[in-house]
């Protein structure tokens, strides 16, 4: 339920609705966007970043919380791990049980490799499960992979690695077809045509969806396929460090049973890091739309083993996180709400920007409105209105229940009927644009048999990601990593395993005098409140 002050502001939103609906708000010019980002995007706040002092990205900046983890020692530094006692011995080790990890496991299995998935929580506990709005692919007659490339390249500020972006857009239709053949229920018309909409920054309607459970539908399908294939999945077990061999290859990982605190050794000829994002590090104290385990573990593992990062200083804040009520603060309100026509409106009822600018621009504009006193005060800060009743006025009654049932349900839990009243939103920490650097085949630049897929990769999207390109990238790059890892495993000979890089990293930290007190990777956020 909204407060009386909020209800007063809603009256202004209602009063301007009819006039607003008659005019599409103007899109910003390139110059206007650039000015806005510099003034309001959190990536431009210097206090949110610090310099990385050691390793391949030494001298570059990273979010403070990530830099602190990069400047922390391994929890194995003073442990004596017996690497001769091998608990799991496989061709391909997939670290992470989300969309990228499962896609990789399926393809590696299809290629005949002995593959295993290890995951910190349950298989499917991942940001993939929470992706709502959709997945992009240029598969309609008025669209093309080249148009998709242009949208994504421009939306990412011309910083995406062309070889990665090419793969993303060229393999997108095949990814959709693969999912469809696995049984993913895409929204279709009766003749089989996909129901597609715009996302922020798209020039064609190429957003495919499964209501607003797009990621969940994809995740539960690929998870089911992993289980059908009887691929071993070790749950509640974290990879806490990569193992290397005398030749400098990666040779597996040391695992931690999260429940018994026992260490285990997994030997593998190729390793795929598919550990996802970092929202639970709460950069700049933002709330997050990410799942509980999103703590950048794979970035730490890879970096300590010598793999460089790319664009680790660019973070995506989703414009529309829940600003109110507090119980769901920071939860994602899918961009699809705006794809379906809802406008962003300030407390005076003004549509201050086009609702489908790219996410960085849209988030910055909300922050600007709130900083300038045009936001609606909430117990935890402020927010702007997302005028959801417009959706039913544009597309007819029942559209919200049919197209975005998860959103409707989430708000009805707290007595807010988004069909009747607008909802309050504010940016939420959503996605790490950066990550470990890979080449087109999915391999890290420094270690020949270490691959990365999914959100842990940097460079696919450049410095901002478009809606629907992440569900796409986990499938495209997950599948590719699985295939490549199976191939490489067949050619790989491992030699004596060691954890020497842990000590070497500790020495570097000591020499740079920057070692933090804690250990990394973090594994889980520290949410438990302890009175002493």
């Amino acid at each position, binding site marked *: 339920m909204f407060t009386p002050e909020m209800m007063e502001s809603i009256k202004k939103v209602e009063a301007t609705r009819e006039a607003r609906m008659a005019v599409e708000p103007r899109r910003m*010019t*390139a110059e206007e966007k650039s000015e806005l980002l510099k003034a309001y995007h959190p990536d431009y706040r210097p206090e949110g970043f610090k310099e990385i002092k050691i390793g391949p990205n030494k001298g570059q900046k990273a979010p403070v919380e990530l830099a602190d983890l990069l400047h922390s020692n391994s929890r194995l530094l003073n442990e004596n791990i017996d690497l001769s006692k091998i608990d799991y011995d496989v061709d391909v080790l997939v670290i992470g049980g989300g969309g990228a990890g499962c896609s990789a496991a399926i393809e590696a299995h299809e290629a005949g490799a002995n593959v295993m998935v290890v995951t910190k*929580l*349950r298989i499917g*506990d991942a940001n993939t*499960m*929470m992706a709502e709005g959709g997945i992009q692919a*240029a*598969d*309609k007659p008025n669209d*093309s*992979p*080249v148009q998709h*490339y*242009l949208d994504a390249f*421009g939306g990412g500020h*011309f910083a995406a690695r*062309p*070889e990665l972006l*090419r793969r993303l*857009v*060229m393999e997108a*239709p*095949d990814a959709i*077809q693969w999912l*469809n*053949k*696995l*049984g993913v*229920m*895409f929204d279709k018309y*009766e003749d089989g045509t*996909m129901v597609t909409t*715009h996302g922020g920054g798209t*020039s064609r309607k190429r957003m495919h969806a*499964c*209501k607003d459970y797009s*990621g*969940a539908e994809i995740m*539960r*399908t690929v998870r*089911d396929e992993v*289980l*059908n294939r009887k691929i071993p999945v070790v749950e*509640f077990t974290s990879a806490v460090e990569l193992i290397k061999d005398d030749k400098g290859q990666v040779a597996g990982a040391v695992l931690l049973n*999260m*429940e018994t605190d026992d260490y285990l050794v997994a030997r593998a000829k190729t390793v795929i890091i598919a550990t996802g994002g970092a929202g639970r590090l709460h950069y700049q104290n933002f709330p997050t*739309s990410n*799942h*509980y385990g999103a703590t950048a573990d794979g970035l730490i593992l890879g970096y300590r083993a010598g793999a460089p990062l790319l664009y680790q200083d660019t973070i995506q804040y989703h414009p529309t996180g829940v600003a109110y009520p*507090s*119980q769901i603060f920071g939860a994602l309100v899918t961009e699809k709400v705006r794809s379906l026509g809802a406008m962003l409106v300030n407390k005076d009822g003004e549509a201050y920007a086009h609702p489908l600018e790219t996410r960085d621009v849209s988030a910055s504009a909300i922050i600007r409105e709130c900083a300038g006193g045009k936001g609606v005060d909430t117990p935890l800060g402020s927010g702007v209105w997302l005028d959801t009743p417009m959706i039913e006025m544009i597309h007819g009654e029942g559209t919200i229940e049919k197209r975005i049932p*998860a959103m409707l*349900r*989430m708000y009805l*839990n707290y007595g807010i009927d988004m069909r009747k009243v607008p909802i309050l939103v504010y940016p939420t920490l959503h996605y790490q644009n950066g990550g470990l650097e890979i080449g087109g085949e999915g391999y890290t630049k420094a270690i020949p048999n270490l691959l990365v897929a999914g959100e842990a990769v940097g460079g696919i999207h450049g410095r901002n990601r478009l809606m629907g390109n992440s569900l796409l990238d986990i499938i495209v790059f997950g599948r590719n990593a699985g295939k490549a890892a199976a191939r490489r495993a067949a050619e790989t000979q491992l030699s004596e395993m060691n954890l020497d890089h842990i000590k070497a990293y500790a020495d570097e930290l000591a020499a740079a005098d920057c070692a933090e007190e804690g250990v990394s990777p973090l594994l*889980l956020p520290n*949410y*438990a*409140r302890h009175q002493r």
Partner: protein
Amino acid sequence: MSNMVNVYFYGKRYSVPGDLTIMTAMEYAGYTLKRGCGCRHGFCGACATIYRIKGCNELKTCLACQTQVQEGMYVASIPFFPTDKRTYDINTIKADQRVMMELYPEIYACIGCNACTKACTQSLNVMQYIAYAQRGELEKCAEESFDCVGCGCCSVRCPAGISHPMVGLLARRLTGKYIAPETKHLTDRVNEINAGAYDELIEAIMQKPISEMQELYNHRDIEK
């Protein structure tokens, strides 16, 4: 500061702010969650929870991340429940009534008590989608079960031992793969790409200098 309420985690009393969810209240009480906590936003089903309000005899089920605490709430989480997933080859099974009989025959032991529907944390009509599955109406079963997050509360309460989420999942995969109409424009585009129709065009755009890309991007036409 909001009002404090008394809640009981596994029978032990804690005083917590009344505006918290069950999940954040457990963390407020000092629990470090490993099991029973996943996406924290109502999509993954990790935090299936059963509770009773002191003085009421009715047992309720919910997702801990989506449910606000109440005074006198006795809470037990169900971090794992042995639902029974049957394995199959999606490429060889058929989308007919027999598939349910073969893979999930226990659905025919449903006694119609509707406990599954009452237990659903997503307010789905669970018994109805099981009925559709019994009749081989796979598409209806898929639609009716679509919003399932797989928390398993239905199965916990089922006297017939049915693993409802798995039945819905099978129906959805069969519907997505076999029953929903084929997408011709998708097939066409995949074929075009495989035939190399876009190779030169994509190569060309990859080679363009940034200034030209900026020009193209800033002046591209946007579909209405």
